[in-house]
């Protein structure tokens, strides 16, 4: 049996554990044994993109070590998967010993939808979602990992689901990690443009594969009073989209 180590990501761990369980369900249904290594916290991207290279490297070493012995590593995030696949090897460019380990981890690491479609190539268990959705490509999924067709292929198999594309699906939502709090006015302006694009589709639900984008777009949609529900794609694919969507009342 294929053993998959789940890189939960900090935002899923803290903000929306349900996405982690949806990922586990999808992987198990696809015939994988899922392991969640304890020594994981975050991929280190906030430090890396803030210029704190030393801390980023320390966190990267911790991740590399924790995930050393598994067939595959899967993250329900293009951003964190991109960090591990592209930036870990770059971080250790001058350190051959760690570079080998970073390259090895990079080869084994995949974003969730890409892993299901490209690596496992299995038909996911049938799921049902009644409604019209639109899909936001995270910048890291789209441009760092070239993921565009995979989530759409999976959504195409969900019964009852109709996909309406955004007018500018390649546009950033304005999250940008710490950018969104360092330059909040600019971030909000970019998020407003994304929210307008989402609202214009008329879709009842917005899906994406990255919690950062989802929190940002949900926050802006709700501030503007739009009724669009916002969820991680894994929730819909796993048939676990019954509970409150992001930012909705929970009791």
């Amino acid at each position: 049996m294929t053993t998959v180590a789940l890189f939960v990501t900090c935002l899923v761990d803290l903000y929306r554990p349900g996405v982690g369980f949806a990922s586990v369900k999808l992987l198990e249904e696809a015939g994988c044994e899922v392991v969640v290594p304890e020594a994981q916290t975050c991929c280190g991207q906030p430090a890396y993109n803030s210029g704190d290279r030393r801390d980023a490297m320390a966190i990267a070493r911790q991740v590399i070590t924790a995930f050393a012995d598994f067939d595959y590593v899967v993250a329900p995030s293009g951003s964190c998967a991109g960090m591990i696949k592209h930036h870990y090897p770059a971080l250790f460019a001058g350190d051959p010993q760690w570079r080998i380990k970073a390259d090895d981890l990079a080869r084994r690491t995949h974003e969730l939808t890409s892993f299901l479609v490209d690596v496992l190539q299995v038909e996911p268990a049938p799921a049902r979602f009644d409604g019209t959705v639109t899909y936001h490509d995270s910048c890291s999924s789209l441009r760092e990992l070239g993921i565009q067709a995979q989530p759409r292929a999976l959504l195409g198999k969900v019964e009852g689901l109709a996909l309406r594309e955004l007018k500018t699906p390649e546009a950033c939502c304005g999250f940008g990690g710490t950018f969104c709090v360092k330059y909040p006015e600019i971030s909000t302006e970019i998020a407003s443009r994304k929210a307008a694009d989402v609202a214009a589709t008329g879709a009842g639900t917005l899906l994406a594969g990255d919690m950062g984008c989802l929190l940002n777009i949900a926050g802006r949609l709700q501030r503007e009073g739009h009724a669009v529900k916002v969820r991680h794609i894994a929730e819909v694919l796993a048939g676990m989209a019954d509970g409150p969507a992001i930012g909705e009342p929970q009791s």
Partner: protein
Amino acid sequence: MKSTAHGFKENARNALQDTQLRDALSVVGTNFIVKRRLAADALPEFETLRDEATAIKNRTLNELDLHLERFERKVVEHGGVVHWCIDAAAARETVLSICRSVNAKTVTKGKSMLGEEIGINPFLEANNIRPIETDLGEYIIQLADEPPSHIIAPAVHKTKSQIADLFEKHHKRPRSMDGEALVAEARAMLRQSYFDADVGITGANFLVAETGSSVIVTNEGNGDLTQTLPKIHIVLASIEKLVPTFEDMATILRVLARSATGQQMSVYTTVSTGARRAEDPDGPEQYHVVLIDQGRSAMLGTELQDLLRCIRCGACMNHCPIYHAVGGHAYGWVYPGPIGAALDPALLGVAEAHHLPNASTFCGRCEEVCPMRIPLPKIMRHWRERAFEDDIQPVMQRTAIRWWAFLARRPFLYRANTRLAMWLLHALGKTRGRFKSLPFAGGWTAGRDLPAPQGGTFHAQWAAKGGRTK
């Protein structure tokens, strides 16, 4: 040009509140993007050409000294002069002494970002020489007494209505809102200037080593009039404009206009080689190339060398969400957008320009469209690292990152702390599902609701279920 890059935050805030600017900028995020896409899609070898263009510049930069010397020999062979200038001040003095040699009163100018960089216009004005911009966009912003806000569309921040107001005020003619009429009006006002000017100054898109030529690409033909009618033609060029051969230039030209405006070629591609010969029907009596270093040679052989491949097409800013939101002036110096965010810290110092590389979501679209494949986000990250090392970033941000990293490196401590924080946030927010405002989260909640967490952490729930952890 005096920098206000350190005031980026305030500049950006003002820009976001400027509704006319918002109207004017709306074309950048749509027209430029669509046109580039169509041009790239129409050329099957476009991606291959980008690789070739990148390789040409890499090769040239690796032996730049040889190409520069060859270029000078060829310029001299054709009766021209090359002036080697280490910095902006030397370049300004050189231009002034050439102008004074013919007692110049007015100077016509083709578009030159390097001219902006070295501040040639205010310098000439201070020395009683009147510079007249002849590119339409540059002419407009000269009337408005503003710097360019885009490297190929300098007046893109102006609406047609604002331009009509400017023309009415300066030309003393009836106000028109017809685009063609406005262009004709500017053309009529500029006409005599070409004949009156003693010196014509242009920039250069390329310097060709094998022939000693300078090359400009324009869409209005103003550059040709600027450089052929006056007695003296001065070319302002920085050292990275060199290409070894005409063939090399032709390759890069094929990606330049397509990336910039979506044209296959700009309307005019004009090659200047030396001064007027006896048999030439027209041309300048003197041909001067003011070759400027201004920090470029210091980038050679460093992680910044990739920046010297830039051909100033503007594709990066045309595709940048930050540029779309705030426009070019907010960046506070000559080069806005992603190229400015990567280049300005090198030319101004990271202390002055640290906001620019920080104000990016790293969405990666700039790198995706850069015809010269400059790794712009990587270079911005380099500057963030420098700012972090030099303690330039705000103390709060540094402390928050270091404190968070301290926890992230200690999973047990991290879990204890985050579990408590998430429990609290969930308890406070679950009923409404989100927060309108929250202490310490003002950066987020000023423009967005903050969703409340779902409750419990994944790791705690996984452990409670007895899930496998090794």
